[in-house]
């Protein structure tokens, strides 16, 4: 095992199996094929001879296959069992006996021999040191698991056989942990699966650093002022570029003072809720995000296993920094070196609130939760009421019908059963976040979509495989209507499921090509007629047709054919046009410059009843004319999805607004939902 620390001065010191050394040597030599052995010994001989002859300040090493030949393949060597001895005692017999002792072990195992260089005159008093390691060869994707295992086994480092580079664990390697054959096999078995055996996880979690799970990941917790919607707007990641936008730490001024050495980072708490873990400090926001990160991506700032602090000190000394700022500057250079060394962040126990991490890269949260804010107790003293009456303006101010949306904190009820791909964990939580209790009951009563995916740029429901596609990014480049899109597409799924139930529900065969949605079919005549009635009252549908002529066409008609010139036709057009103008202005105002998803749902219902004329003419939200032309049923199925979105939403104000415009339809929809709930 590689180590720069002096070992006990005992030739042939073995960390394991020492009493059986001679027996194993004899057994190994007898069993080996004579010719192979000669070839292997010859190669090994020359390698080991060179090592013995090498100078004290030279380091050298080689890896052998279990037949004694030299291994010249790649991978990362993870030392599991080690023995140390002076280099002048290193010979083929010793190496072969080591090999033979471990020949019964399976998997991609190799034996590494390494000669250390002398770091100082006093080091290695009698002879330079060498180590022999039984290595498991792992792949780069297993590096994190390998480092954790090596750390637990008190090994000094892993060695990359392709890049000839060491990855240090922070351990000296002086006294490696002895493990049983069963534990050795367990390590191999778990590494193959990309996990860690429970005994490694337990031991690692007792080291006093970040706790890990069996995938070698640490859970980091970040509190932010940023809501999840804002997070998605800014790319879906907790972004270190926002450093300083929350509560500023004492390091904030370093960003300006030492800009060349500055590295943006996000602060996280580690082992939150566990003994010795981070305790939330006041003033850091109430949206709690959890992310997972490979444990060894974070550098142990306090232990400094790679000795980067010494390098930082050298840099600062050379630059001749003023003593008053040298300490802080050294710290900053140290952090920069950690970042430059390829670590994603660092962790430390030195903070006043427990163990924390600073992460240099953006991380995608796995979960989020909006924590309830405890309101301060109101003072009992009555507020002073001004005697002077305020001047009342004569002109009435424009009062928006819809109150500003105040996020309401609701318990997150997990929706299960959905097969989710992409940025999945967040989708279910959003669905739960946006829906009221009644909607949750409906969602839980009916089977979930077979597939929910957040991949792609468009939102739609696909009837063939009951697939809901909802992008979580900024779809139109202008506004975010995430709440509406999530619920709207889920509304199509509800419509789809109601049809499936009507057909005789088969969870494994959900599709009927011609009648995929209930609202598209005759069975929803009641719903359709109420929508038509409401639309007629608003002048949106004229004489029951959605393909009413535009005013220009009506005018031409009026002039061309005198028989058509009955004023009733034109009068109805005017009612309609005036309504559309009024509504477009009012709803455009309510939607605001950034858009409002729930208003979009109302606009889309109006748009459907006008066959796309509304969105086309006023540039407002809706489906295009071609979509409405495609099928006369689209206006009903889209209305259903829009109404589900409005009905299911936590804020009922939009539902009330829609009720003003479409009272009969809303009433019918409520009856339908009650039927589903009570069925």
């Amino acid at each position, binding site marked *: 095992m590689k180590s720069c620390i002096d070992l006990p001065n005992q030739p042939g010191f073995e960390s394991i199996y020492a009493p059986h050394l001679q027996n194993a040597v004899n057994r190994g030599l007898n069993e080996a094929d004579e010719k192979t052995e000669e070839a292997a010994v010859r190669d090994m001989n020359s390698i080991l001879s060179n090592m013995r002859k090498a100078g004290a300040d030279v380091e050298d090493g080689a890896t052998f296959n279990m037949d004694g030949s030299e291994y010249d393949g790649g991978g990362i060597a993870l030392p599991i069992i080690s023995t140390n001895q002076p280099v002048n005692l290193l010979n083929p017999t010793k190496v072969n006996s080591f090999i033979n002792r471990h020949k019964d072990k399976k998997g991609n195992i190799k034996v590494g021999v390494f000669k250390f260089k002398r770091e100082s005159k006093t080091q290695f008093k009698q002879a330079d040191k060498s180590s022999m390691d039984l290595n498991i060869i792992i792949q780069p994707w297993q590096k994190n698991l390998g480092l954790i295992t090596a750390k637990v086994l008190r090994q000094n480092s892993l060695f990359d056989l392709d890049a000839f580079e060491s990855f240090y664990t922070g351990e000296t390697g002086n006294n490696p942990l002895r493990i049983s054959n069963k534990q050795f096999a367990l390590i191999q078995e778990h590494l193959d699966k990309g996990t860690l055996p429970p005994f490694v996880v337990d031991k690692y979690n007792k080291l006093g650093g970040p706790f890990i799970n069996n995938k070698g990941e640490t859970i980091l917790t970040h509190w932010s002022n940023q809501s999840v919607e804002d997070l998605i707007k800014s790319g879906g990641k907790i972004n270190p570029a926002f450093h300083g936008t929350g509560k500023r730490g004492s390091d904030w001024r370093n960003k300006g003072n030492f800009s060349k050495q500055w590295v943006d980072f996000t602060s996280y708490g580690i082992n939150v809720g566990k003994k010795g873990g981070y305790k939330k400090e006041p003033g850091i926001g109430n949206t709690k995000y959890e992310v997972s990160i490979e444990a060894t991506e974070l550098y142990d700032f306090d232990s400094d296993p790679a000795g980067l602090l010494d390098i930082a000190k050298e840099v600062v000394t050379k630059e001749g920094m003023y003593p008053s700022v040298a300490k802080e500057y050294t710290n900053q250079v140290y952090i920069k070196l950690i970042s430059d060394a390829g670590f994603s962040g660092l962790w430390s126990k030195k903070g006043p609130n427990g163990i924390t991490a600073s992460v240099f890269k953006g991380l995608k949260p796995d979960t989020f939760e909006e924590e309830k804010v405890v309101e301060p107790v109101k003072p009992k003293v009555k507020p002073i009421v001004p005697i002077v009456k305020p001047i009342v303006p004569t002109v009435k101010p424009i009062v928006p019908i819809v109150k500003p949306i105040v996020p309401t904190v609701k318990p997150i009820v997990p929706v299960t059963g959905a097969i989710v791909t992409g940025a999945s964990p967040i989708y279910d939580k959003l669905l739960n976040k946006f829906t009221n209790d009644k909607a949750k009951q409906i969602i839980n009563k009916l089977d979930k979509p077979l597939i929910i995916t957040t991949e*792609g*740029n*468009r*939102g*739609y*429901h*696909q*009837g*063939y495989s009951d697939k809901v596609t909802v992008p979580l990014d900024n*779809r*139109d*480049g*202008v506004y975010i209507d995430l709440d509406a899109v999530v619920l*709207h597409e889920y509304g*199509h799924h509800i*419509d789809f499921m109601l049809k499936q139930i009507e057909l005789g529900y088969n969870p494994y065969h959900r*599709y009927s*090509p*011609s009648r*995929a*949605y209930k609202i*598209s079919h005759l069975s929803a005549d009641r719903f359709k007629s109420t929508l038509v009635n409401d639309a007629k009252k608003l002048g949106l549908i004229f004489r029951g047709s959605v393909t009413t002529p535009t*005013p*220009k066409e*009506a*005018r031409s008609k*009026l002039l061309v054919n005198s028989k058509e*010139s009955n*004023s009733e036709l*034109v*009068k109805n*057009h*005017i009612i309609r*046009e*005036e309504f559309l*103008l009024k509504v477009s202005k009012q709803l455009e105002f309510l939607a605001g410059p950034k*858009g409002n998803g729930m208003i*979009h749902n109302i606009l*889309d219902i109006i748009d459907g009843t006008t066959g796309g004329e509304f*969105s*086309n*003419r*006023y*540039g*407002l*939200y*809706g*489906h*295009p*004319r*071609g*979509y409405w032309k*495609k*099928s006369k*049923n*689209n206006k009903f*199925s*889209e209305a259903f*999805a829009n109404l589900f979105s409005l009905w299911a939403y936590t804020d009922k104000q939009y539902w009330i607004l829609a009720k003003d415009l479409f009272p009969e339809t809303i009433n019918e929809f409520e009856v339908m939902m009650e039927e589903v709930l009570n069925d």
Partner: protein
Amino acid sequence: MIDIKAVMILNKLDSIIKDNNNRSSFRPGSRIYKEHINKFGVEPNIIFRGSLESPKLISGIKQAIDRNIPYDELNELSPEEQVLYEQGGLQT
């Protein structure tokens, strides 16, 4: 004989049309939409919800005009989903 009532109604319609035309002439989405119709003789094939004024849609139609290929959002679906859309088995 001139029907006064009809003339008044026609005048009202004229003002509505004028008002609307004034509004739409300021909208880049509306303009590019018309440009597409003038060039290809067909409306852009938009199938997803949104606004004609969305910058993403406007730039998409612009690109289509520049490339001389009519704008068609059906291409954003897989071939199977395109068939499904035609059959009414896909809702946006």
